[in-house]
């Protein structure tokens, strides 16, 4: 298949022109729709699952969080309470370290390794001029990240990669619990279900949630689902 061959060669690509079938119609020749799509690839040339796609997925999440906290720490809201800037600075440091770590282990396989500039994320939907707005945004991003890591583990095939993401995952959960408490005391367990398990999200679900912040259409079509 032509489209698949492209991904085999390119891995993940920014602003690549790919074809999306606009549903299955009865017409003999459905018209392909050209779009710019960011699709991480988790299959090698033989069609075997590899971890590059999920590691890139995690890398994107760390980029998003790092960019958010960098923006907040660079211009913190005036009504932050005592100690809160220190929390936010720690959060920024952790996410930047996560980002640089994943970028390093991906090397040339990082989706943006050939890009002149990294993606610019948009946070205009957040209110970053008040402490409540900042912590509500942090809570949203940390909950997404925690749920994403919870769902990503089983999609990995290399043990070292599972450990690498698990080491980051619990730190994200710690972050999320703190962000919850900054918004509302004792709400640390808000995402925990009736079964005592935390939230889990698939890459497809996560992409829907983070799409508003990302300036290119995200696709989980080339990521594994089990």
């Amino acid at each position, binding site marked *: 298949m032509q489209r698949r061959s492209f991904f085999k060669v390119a891995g993940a690509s920014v602003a690549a022109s790919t074809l999306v079938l606009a549903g299955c119609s009865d017409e003999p020749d459905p018209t392909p729709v050209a779009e710019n799509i960011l699709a991480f690839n988790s299959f090698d040339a033989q069609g075997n699952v590899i971890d590059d796609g999920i590691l890139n997925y995690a890398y994107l999440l760390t980029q998003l969080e790092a960019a958010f906290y960098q923006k907040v720490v660079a211009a913190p809201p005036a009504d932050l309470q005592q100690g809160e800037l220190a929390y936010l600075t720690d959060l920024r440091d952790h996410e930047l370290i996560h980002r640089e*770590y994943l970028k390093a282990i991906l090397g040339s396989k990082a989706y943006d390794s050939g890009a002149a500039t990294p993606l610019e994320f948009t946070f205009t939907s957040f209110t970053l001029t008040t402490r409540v707005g900042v912590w509500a945004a942090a809570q949203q991003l940390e909950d997404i990240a*925690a749920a994403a890591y919870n769902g990503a*583990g089983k999609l990995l095939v290399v043990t070292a990669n599972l450990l690498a993401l698990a*080491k980051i995952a619990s730190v994200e959960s710690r972050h999320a619990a703190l962000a919850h*408490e900054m918004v509302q005391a004792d709400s*640390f*367990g808000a995402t925990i279900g009736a079964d005592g*398990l*935390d939230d889990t999200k698939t890459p497809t679900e996560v992409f829907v949630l983070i799409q508003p912040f990302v300036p290119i259409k995200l696709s989980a079509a080339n990521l594994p689902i089990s």
Partner: protein
Amino acid sequence: MNILKLISDIEKVDPEVYDRFDSRRKVFKHMTGMGKTLASAAVPGFLGAVFNKAYGQTSTLPQGIQDILNFALKLEYLEYYFYNKGLATTGLIPSGAGRDALSVIRDDENKHVAFLKTALGISAATVVVPESKFDFTGSKGGTRAALFADVFSNYQTFLAVAQSFEDTGVRAYKGGAAGLMANDTILEAALNIHSVEARHASHLRTMRRGGPTVAGAGTGASPKSWITGTESGGAGGSITAPIYGAGASGFPAEDNVTQGGVNLQTALSSLNFPATAFTEAFDEPLDGTTVTNIVLNFVVGTTL
């Protein structure tokens, strides 16, 4: 035309394609989503149904996976009994936010016990580990000096021991994760419990530094909600030091700054971040033997 290849190719574009062909899978997917909305009382039986569908009878679970789940079950019992006893001790836990939080945590641990029993095919009524197995003062049933003599009379000591258990739990689940990779359903569940333990640990740390009792900043700087270096031994000094220390070969201490073979503190020195940030950014796993030795401090007898 190779229909299987076609479906496989479509799947790359439409991950849901199998749902459209296979109603059994669709049912399973919907059942998974229902878990969050079911009343807790109905959950254990429901989970049994999901687990049976996901990977058949418990007897077919590989021994290695059963061993990890059994070990996790004992740790969950330890935590559940600890919180339950604390909450039942008059005058220990103040009413309000603290009591509410510890009740939530206690209930989560109880659900983890139920969950793991279901996964292992153990009936809900079976008590696998009795409460009498544990001595949370650390005196091992009065056979040695207590490590935390005031654990049930001093709220701060109680919180300190609680944090120690949760931080241990995070490391233990992370250490066990690699052994569960053969079974996606169990691995995902274990990672979810791991995440819950981390949220608990974070909250207990926030409680210990004195905030927030209302929404807002904590009143103290220490302990942070995440693990800094080896925590100077942690909440109980030399007694809790192994919780943050190195385990068996391949399990470095929490002050580790080398990830994936790269010393991040050196490689990223241009960021000018404090050294502590590089340790805080990663939680380290711990091996079963080291976890067992930590937990044995709170067990009556020589085996867990």
